[in-house]
C-alpha cells in the first residue's frame, strides 16, 4: 500500500519538477527577451551608463 503510494508520489514529484524546470527555462528566455527588446545591442553587450 505504502509502496504503491510512494510510486504515485514519485510520478507526481517528477511531473512537478519537469513543470517547474520548464517555468524556470521560460523565465530565463523572458528575461533575455525583455533585456534585448528593441535594443540594437548584441546579446551579451551591456548598454552602459
Amino acid at each position, binding site marked *: 500500500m*505504502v*509502496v504503491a*503510494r*510512494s*510510486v504515485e*508520489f*514519485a510520478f507526481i*514529484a*517528477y511531473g*512537478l*519538477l*519537469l513543470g*517547474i*524546470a*520548464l*517555468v*524556470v*527555462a*521560460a*523565465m*530565463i*528566455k523572458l*528575461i*533575455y527577451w*525583455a*533585456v534585448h527588446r528593441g535594443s540594437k545591442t*548584441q*546579446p*551579451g*553587450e*551591456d548598454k552602459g551608463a
Partner: protein
Amino acid sequence: MSFWDFFEGLHTLFTQQWDTSLVRVLLIFVGFLLIYLGYRQTLEPLLMIPMGIGIVAVNAGVLYFEAKEAAAGNLFVAPLISDPIELMKYLQLDFLQPVYNFTFSNGLIACLVFMGIGAITDIDYLIAKPWMSMMLAAGAELGTIATLPIAVASGLTPKEAASVALVGGADGPVVLFGSIRLAPQIFVPLSVVAYVYLSLCYACYPYMIKGLVPKSKRGIKMDLKDIPKISPGEKFAFATIACGVLSLLFPMGAPLFASFFVGVAVKEARINRYVELLSGPVLYGSTFFLGFTLGALLSADIIMNSTVAKLLGLGMLALFLSGVGGLAAGMIWMKFSKKPFNPLVGIAGVSCVPTTAKVAQKCAFESNKLAMITPYAMGPNVAGVITTAILGSIYVGIVPEFFK
C-alpha cells in the same frame, strides 16, 4: 586507581561490548583511510581530511563520564539530545556541540555553503542554453525520484526514503537540509554517506560513461560559437526573479534558494567585498566545520544503527540512477538536436559542481582531443543545483503531508 584509569580511551576499548569496540577500531581505520585518500587527492581533500580526523579522534577519544557505571561518551558532540536541560549541559561540555546545535540542526551550515557556491558559480551557460540545461538536469534527477519508492519497498519510512533519495541529487547541502527536517534520526550516517559518495562520483562515473556511451558518441565535437554571451544585468535579473518565484512556489526551500541566489546576485552586481567574503571565509569556513563535525558525529553507536547498511546501498543506487538518467537525457537530446551534440553533457546534470562537468569533459577528451564540451556541460551542472533544491523543497514540503 589502576593503570587503566590513566588511559581511558584504551580502557573503554576493552570494557565496552565487543561489537562496539570492533566498530570503533574499524571506524578509526576508515578515518585514516579517508585522510590518506584526501591527502593523495583521490577524494576531495577539503572535506575528507577534516572528516577523517574527526572520525579518528571521536572513536579513539571515548571516556567514561563521572562514574564507571555511567555510559561511555566523548567530548565532541552529542547529536541525539532533545531535552533542553540536558542540552545546556552538553553545550558546556562538548566542544562541537554549539557548532552542531546552532549551525547543523537549523540548516544554517547548508545555507552558508550554498551562499559560497552561489558566489563562485558562473550561470552564463544556464542563461545561454536554458531549455537544454533544465531538461538535462531534470533527467539527471532520475535517482532522486526512483530511489524513493525503492527505499520505501526496502522498509524505510517515507520520510527516511525521501532523505536518502536526495543523495541522487549529488548536492551535499540539500541532503543535509532535507534529512535534518525529514529524518533527523538518520541525518548523521546519511550525511557522511552522501559526502563520501559525492567524492566517489569523480572516480566511478568515467567507468559508467564508458560502459553506457559508445566511443564515437563520446567524442562528438560541439560548436562553441553557438553560445551567446550573457551580460551581468541578465544574470542579476534572473537570480533575483528566480529567487522570488521559487520561494513563492516552495516556501520550505526558501532558505536554500535565498542563499544560493544571494551569492549569484552579489557576484553579478560586482560587490567584490561580499564575493570575497562568501567565496572565501564563508564557503571554506563552513566546508571545514561541515567535514570536521560530520566526522566527529560518526561514532560507533551512530554507525551501529541497523538502517546504515541500507543507506549505503540506497545512496549508491541513487547516484548510479542519476548518472544513467543524465546520460539517457543526453542521448535523447542528441537525437533531436539539429547541431552536433555530445551526450556526455547530460551527466553534468548531476549537480556535483563542477565535478561532473569535469568528468564529462575528461571522458570526451579521451575519445577525441578536439572535443571541448565544458561550456555546454556547465549549463546543466548549474541547473542541477536548482533542480535538486526544487526536489528537496518538494520532499520536505509534501512528503509529510502526502504520507500522513
